[in-house]
Structures are given as structure tokens and as C-alpha cells.
């Protein structure tokens, strides 16, 4: 039911001209207000924490919808930040929130200083759920200034933030913001791949060349089948990551996140090829999804970082321990 509400809202309030404005750096405050009023920033919280107590499947569906519509707001991050803040017993965000880990910050005389790199929509956030070592801080907007601009592959802002904040005690870190973020991104990737597949089926079914729709060519059909396979993998990978996150298993998060990242690249490439030249333009909607896939697959830790984490655990498990490890993921 929540999914239907989100779907309707996004179909109504997020059109391609809004996407273009967001790509230029405009904060879509009206859309943010509508999504907030629906309660989405709290969608990953239990009822005890003030959320709706959604099941894992319902949470996943909501997150995939954010990818399916390439929502140009840090809503997934805010949902994840609130889950982390709630688990830590810290106050929730009052607006949009960022999610970051920055172990290079220094804490001297109670003052937290240093740079947090590339925070999505950093200028527009109410607060930052920031992990430093094994502590989680809720850094308010007054605690940072803009250090440098930066942009994602979909042109959404990724400024770096100069933190200078008289820190409170914070709280023990419940789980790593990178694991949280990587899980959110896996769902968004799966959602964007849903749109990439739908658009590819629609385009190849209507575009006529050599006297027949492109999708009547077996070579095209087989590529669409591959895309459906990558989508199935990304969706399962996101679910796998979310279940692992819930039980505190970072290796499971790594596995799910890695497979979703891989599907993002393969899927974007198949979808663009299926569209031909129009898929390479801003005149067609496909680019909203491909550029977001190329954004999300490299965030919250990179592929190399996550692969080394999982791969070194696999090597440590050794020949005899490898399969038992796989069955816990």
C-alpha cells in the first residue's frame, strides 16, 4: 500500500523537467516536502522507534521505487541515517540527512574537525549521521561548511564538507554507515534496472527496423533476457544485503552489494545497446537510470574495497572453510 502511494506521488510530482532541474543542482523542495509528509524518512524504523514497522519486503519495495524513478533527492540516505540514529538512541533527522564514515577526522578538546568527502546534496541536509571510529555522531547543519564542490555521474551534487563542530558525546556505532549505504544503493540499483528493462522492452517492441520491431530479432531478445537475469540478481542481492545488515553480518552486505554493483554496469550497458543512439541522449529517459546506475555502483565504499573485504575472508576461510562461509551469507 505504501508502495502504491509512493508510486502515485512520484508519477505525479517527478517529471522529466524536474529531473532536469535537479541535474542542474536545484533542490526539489516541493517533492521533498511531499515525500517527507508521507513519512518516508522513517520508513526503515520499527514501530517502537516511531516508524511503521514495515516488513523487510515492504522496505525493499519502497527503496526500489526510489531507484525505479531515479529520485533526485537524498531520501534513501535519510532513511538509512534515521535507522542508524534510532538504533544508536540519537535524535532523528528533522529534514534530509547524510550518511558518512570519516575516520580521518580529529577530535581535540571536544572539537571535531576535518573533511567528509562527497556527501550527497550536502548543502541541503539537516544533519549528518557520521561515524568516526566506533562512535556515531549526529552533526547538525551548523557543524559544517562547504569545503569543495563535487558531482556524481548523474550530475547530482556531491560536495565535500568541512566539519568544525563542538561535538557532543555521540553514541556507540550500531553498524557501519557504509554497510547501511551500500545496502540502500543495492535496492536503488535494482529499481533503476527495473526501469532500464521496462524501457528496453518498450523501445525494442516499438522501434521498427528492417520492417519489424527490433525485439523480433533473436539477438535482441537474448540481450533482454540477460538484462532480466542481471535484474533478478540485483534484486536478490539487495535482499541478501538487507538481511545480512539486519543480523550484523558485514560479509553478507559485501556479497549483496558487490553483485548489485556488477549488475548495475552490465545492465546499463545492455539497456543502452538495446536503445541504440537515442539511449545515449538526454532526449530519452533511459539516461536518468544509466547515469544513476553509474553513480550508485561506486558509492558507500567502492567495489574494490568491498571485494577485498569479502575476498580476504574467503581466502582466510581456506579450502575447507570456504563453503561453510558461503552458506552463512
Amino acid at each position: 500500500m505504501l508502495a502504491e502511494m509512493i508510486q502515485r506521488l512520484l508519477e505525479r510530482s517527478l517529471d522529466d523537467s524536474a529531473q532536469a532541474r535537479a541535474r542542474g543542482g536545484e533542490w526539489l523542495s516541493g517533492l521533498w516536502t511531499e515525500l517527507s509528509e508521507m513519512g518516508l524518512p522513517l520508513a526503515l524504523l520499527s514501530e517502537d522507534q516511531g516508524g511503521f514497522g514495515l516488513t523487510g519486503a515492504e522496505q525493499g519495495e519502497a527503496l526500489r521505487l526510489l531507484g525505479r524513478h531515479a529520485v533526485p533527492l537524498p531520501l534513501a540516505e535519510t532513511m538509512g541515517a534515521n535507522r542508524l540514529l534510532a538504533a544508536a538512541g540519537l535524535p532523528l533527522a528533522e529534514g534530509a540527512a547524510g550518511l558518512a564514515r570519516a575516520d580521518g577526522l580529529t577530535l581535540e578538546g571536544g572539537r571535531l574537525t576535518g573533511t567528509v568527502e562527497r556527501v550527497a546534496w550536502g548543502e541541503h541536509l539537516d544533519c549528518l549521521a557520521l561515524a568516526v571510529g566506533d562512535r556515531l555522531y549526529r552533526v547538525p547543519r551548523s557543524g559544517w561548511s562547504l569545503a569543495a564542490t563535487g558531482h556524481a555521474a548523474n550530475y547530482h551534487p556531491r560536495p565535500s564538507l568541512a566539519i568544525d563542530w563542538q561535538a557532543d558525546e555521540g553514541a556507540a556505532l550500531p553498524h557501519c554507515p557504509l554497510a547501511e549505504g551500500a545496502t540502500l544503493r543495492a535496492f536503488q540499483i535494482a529499481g533503476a534496472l527495473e526501469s532500464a528493462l521496462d524501457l528496453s522492452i518498450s523501445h525494442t517492441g516499438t522501434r521498427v527496423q528492417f520492417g519489424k520491431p527490433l525485439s523480433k530479432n533473436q539477438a535482441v531478445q537474448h540481450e533482454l533476457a540477460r538484462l532480466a537475469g542481471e535484474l533478478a540478481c540485483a534484486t536478490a542481492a539487495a535482499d541478501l544485503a538487507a538481511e545480512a545488515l539486519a543480523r550484523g553480518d558485514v560479509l553478507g552486505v559485501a556479497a549483496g552489494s558487490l553483485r548489485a554493483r556488477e549488475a548495475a554496469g552490465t545492465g546499463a550497458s545492455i539497456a543502452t545497446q538495446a536503445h541504440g543512439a537515442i539511449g545515449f541522449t538526454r532526449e530519452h529517459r533511459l539516461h536518468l537510470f544509466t547515469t544513476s546506475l553509474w553513480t550508485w555502483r561506486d558509492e558507500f565504499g567502492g567495489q574494490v574495497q568491498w571485494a577485498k573485504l569479502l575476498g580476504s575472508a574467503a581466502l582466510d576461510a581456506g579450502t575447507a572453510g570456504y563453503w561453510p562461509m558461503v552458506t552463512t551469507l
Partner: protein
Amino acid sequence: MSAIPFPAPPADSETVIALRAEVRAFLAEELASRTDRQRSDSWCGADKDFSRKMGQRGWLGMTWPKRYGGHERTAYERYVVVEEMLAAGAPVGAHWIADRQSGPSILKFGTEEQKQYFLPKIAAGELYFSIGMSEPDSGSDLAATRTRAVRDGDVYRVTGTKVWTSFAHQSDWAIMFCRTSGTPADRHNGTSQLLIDLKNTPGLTIRPIIDLAGQHHFNEMHFEDAAIPASQLLGSEGQGWAQVMSELAFERSGPERFLSSIELLYQLIAILRGRQSDAAQITLGRLTARLAVLRRLSRSVTSMLQEEQDAGLQASIVKDVGALFEQSLPDIARELVDCEPDPLAASGYAAVLANIVHNSPSWSLRGGTREILRGIIARGLGTR
């Protein structure tokens, strides 16, 4: 929306956890002397003594009713046994087809007499099946079957040739797809399945087809006016196509569709373990992620089979993506470790590599080619 849905896989209950531990303990003891080269045969390795031991443990026919020798366990419990067997390189080949699809087909379509005769013996690990589908002129195009069974009183008179019949020389019976009426132009209509006694059928000749590795798994089965008792018709005459299609979800979704080269992965881990190499860690991480997600998809299909839902499309995805994974391993291994494959070495990395290199091309052919699977998926997407 065109995404193909996979339900959440079943949870690991206490029963499942205990079962997995029991299977692992059994395998550690039973397979202690099995070489890495032997393990790399995966489900092409066969040992009838081992199959009987599995039957004694209650690990064959696991989901079938107790009155037919089954154990009324869940599809997921069977999945756990099967994946542990494959992961350990157990010699499951003798009973593989019987337990996976012949038994379930007999259970679904067989007469009471057929069920009572075959199922308890399969569940005991004492009776083994092969599948007679492909023919010299009918491979992926199964409906073009030319093997013909003509009713003649109490028997069908069968003439024709089946090829690529794995283990026909070692199995006891086969379920054979053939034409009982009409012509190949009638396509799906007029086809049937017959139960064939491979050991006692005058007019049936079984001849080996040696594969490129020099191994004898395949056979040709030639029927020359062979008299098959009409009581050996499986299901309904003329319904062969629908019956065969219902087997395919069992045939295409299991862990054998992505674990065929797992022994090579173990060998790779043994070699790379001490290297502290970024490339080794990254590669192992990515492979492990692919494997973990394939397991999840395969377990999802298990829950669909448990609920008796149509999982043909999902199974095709598991097999297509799974074959890409298991076939990718030799080349990925070659990027990390230099080794000349040696097919006659008794054990070790060179022997395993050779066995996997030789056999991996078959993994996107057997049980439905990559092209057939992608055609099925494309149809599911509405593009055909």
C-alpha cells in the same frame, strides 16, 4: 512491470541447520579418500554404493510420500542435501536423474503400480534412471522427435535413436520422449513418454558416445522395433510435451547449475591463500558475491516448487546465470595462476583444471542450451 519475481527463499530452520550438519559429518567421513580430481567430476561422478548409503540415510526421494518410500520432507531440506553433496564433490551421478526428475515425474504422472514399483527403489538408492530426449535430428528442437512408438495390442513397437543419453550404460531405466501419433510437423501434439527397461529390452542397443575429454557419460540408444509393454506408458498418451515441460523447473533450477566447477574454486583458494594479493582478494570477493546470489535465487525457486508454483521462467534464469558463473571459473583462474592443464594427472591443480576446462563447454548445452533458455526468458518478458 516486466521484472521476473523471485520469492524470498525459505529460512534456515533448526531442522535445516541440524540436517546440514548431519550431511557434512557424513560427507567428511565418506569422502575422506576421494581425490580433488574425483571431486571435480561433480554430479558426473557415480558410485552406486554411495547412492545406496544416501538412500539408507533417507536423503533420496526426500519430498515424496512415505507410502512410496519417501520421507515427506520439504523441498528446501532436499535442496540442502543436494547442495552439500555438490559442494563436497560427492559421487551422486548414479541416482541423480532418478531423484531429481524421473521420480517426481512418476509421482506426478505415473500409475499406482508404477509408483509402487519405482519410487521405493529410487528412494533406496537402488534403481537409477536416464533421460531419453535428444535425437540425431532433434536437439534443442525437442518437438521434432522422430522416435516413434506404435501401439500394437499390449505393447508399443518403438523404432528410433536417442543420443546424449547420460549414464544409459549404467542406469536401470529411462524415461523416453517419443511420438505416438502424427508426424514431426504436428509439433507438441502426439508425443508421449515411455518407461524403458535399459537392461531387459530386446531390440534396444546402447552404444557409447565418447566426449572430447575421452570420458564415457553419453550414449546412443537405438530402438529397432523394440516391444515396450503398454503398461510402461508414463502419464497420458499424447501428453508427452506437457509432461516434459513440467520436469524442466526441477532440471534447471538446482545448485548443480552453478556448482559444477566449485572444486576449481577450492583449489584456487588453496594456492592464493598466502599471497596477500589484491587481485586474488578482489577476484575471490566478486566470485563469492556471484555465488551467494545464485544460491539465493536457486533457493527462491525451491520455495516456488514447494508451493507447486510454475517456476519455469525463474529456473531458466538460474540456469543461464549459473552456467555463466561456473563456466567463467577456468578463465578467471588462469588470470591468477599459471598452470598447464593435465588430464591424466591423478590429482592436484593441473588435473582439476584439465577436467573443468574439458567439461565446462557442456554446461551451457545440457539441460537446455543457453539460446533456448534466453528464448524462454524473452518470451516471459513478452518480446516473442
